[in-house]
């Protein structure tokens, strides 16, 4: 081939690399946010597919527990929203047969499970705690949740809110937690009732529950999700 043809050929080959420039879309301010949202959404979609409903989170020996007094308190707003325990009820609504107010005694009357599981924070640290409570799946049975429903949403006394996919809500280690280290949940850890979900990242495990809703569509996603965190974030 002659020199001219070689140059032409080289130019043509160089132009074939133009698809690489598509990545530049991530540098355009108007497009960046939407693209990253799509990317995060794809990760959530893939996460939901990777989640195995019957696969249990690792459990630990008592000797491996983080001492209770060293278990971090990561309140997003206040360490104690001032719930008056005597008046507390969990308000159940949505796609359930028996909506209404549920007392802590009703939750405690369900079979109690205790598990030593790892609590992983989105920041990258983790601790191992001993949590006790009723299976959320048992509670969903108690309230007659529609088995075809897709989401469980909770609201909290500190204005926090979260939502779960039904597969995770039905997972045997997902607990409505009312005790830690075999003692009643303390205020700074979310008394009287919080979520413990060893298969999810920490911020999904809401404290100070006041409302629980079963639904087919998601109207409220979650406090941190609304700031830009992943919704599924399964471990």
């Amino acid at each position: 081939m002659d020199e001219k043809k070689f140059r032409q050929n080289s130019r043509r080959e160089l132009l074939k690399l133009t698809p690489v420039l598509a990545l530049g879309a991530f540098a355009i301010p108007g497009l960046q946010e939407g693209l990253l949202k799509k990317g995060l959404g794809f990760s959530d979609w893939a996460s939901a597919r990777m989640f195995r409903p019957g696969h249990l989170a690792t459990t630990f020996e008592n000797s491996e527990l983080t001492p209770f007094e060293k278990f971090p308190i990561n309140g997003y707003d206040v360490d104690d929203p001032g719930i008056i325990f005597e008046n507390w009820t969990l308000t159940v609504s949505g796609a359930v047969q028996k909506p209404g107010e549920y007392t802590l005694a009703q939750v405690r009357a369900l079979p109690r499970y205790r598990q030593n599981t790892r609590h992983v924070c989105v920041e990258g640290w983790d601790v191992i705690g001993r949590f006790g409570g009723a299976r959320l799946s048992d509670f969903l049975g108690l309230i007659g949740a529609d088995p075809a429903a897709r989401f469980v949403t909770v609201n909290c006394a500190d204005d926090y809110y979260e939502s779960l996919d039904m597969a995770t809500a039905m997972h045997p280690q997902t607990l409505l937690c009312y005790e830690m280290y075999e003692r009643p949940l303390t205020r700074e850890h979310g008394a009287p009732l919080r979520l413990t979900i060893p298969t999810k990242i920490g911020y999904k495990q809401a404290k100070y529950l006041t409302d629980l809703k079963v639904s087919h569509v998601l109207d409220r996603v979650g406090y941190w999700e609304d700031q830009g965190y992943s919704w599924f974030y399964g471990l």
Partner: protein
Amino acid sequence: MSSSVIEIIEKKGTDEDPVAVGRAVYEHPLVVRLCHWINAVALFVMVGSGLQIFRAFPSFGAKIPQKDLLNWPKAFAIGGWLGGGLQWHLTFMWIYIATGAVYVAYQIFSGNYRQVLFTHRDVRGVWPMVRHYFFFGPKPPAREAYNALQKQAYTGAIVLGVLSVLTGLVVWKPIQFSWLGWMMGGFHYARIWHFAVMWAMLAFVLGHLVMVILHGWNNFVSMLTGWKKDPEY
């Protein structure tokens, strides 16, 4: 020699008697070049956003005692805050994985892996190259696109790429990939490995860039056009 296409570049003297002015070898197929550049961008974003994520807990192990090991400057991080860093990381990891997977699959099925893969046949070429690069030894004659040390470096980079994905999977999903985590020594070790693999990858990139500069323009252009003009072999 690899299966590359070799062309003689000619300048027209007369039609009957063209003058050869150089040779050119088609060294890098289009798929390889595309994967190389897209992956390079993805790696840049993965490192930057990864360091942003690391800033949220610049330590290893459990929460207690939380001692910051390294105060990584915000200027050398992508995403602005933890959530932003995670968005970039969880988006570009798919691009990083996809280009890596396409690259490996292409190399295997096209047979082009022979150009890159370090095998037992390359072992004896290592020492002469080390002597040349680091101890002013004579330059061993080039017989193919990559010398033994290059093959070692590129093969190592591919291994690091695979390890970065595997360690990252355990950090991201320690329960779904608990068996992988177990192989790495547990959740805490996976995070340490993930971090270490990043630095190893950065060391490769640094060496790679130095060598690209030392080897000059024709060599650099070959990763853009595929054609290397006046190869040494």
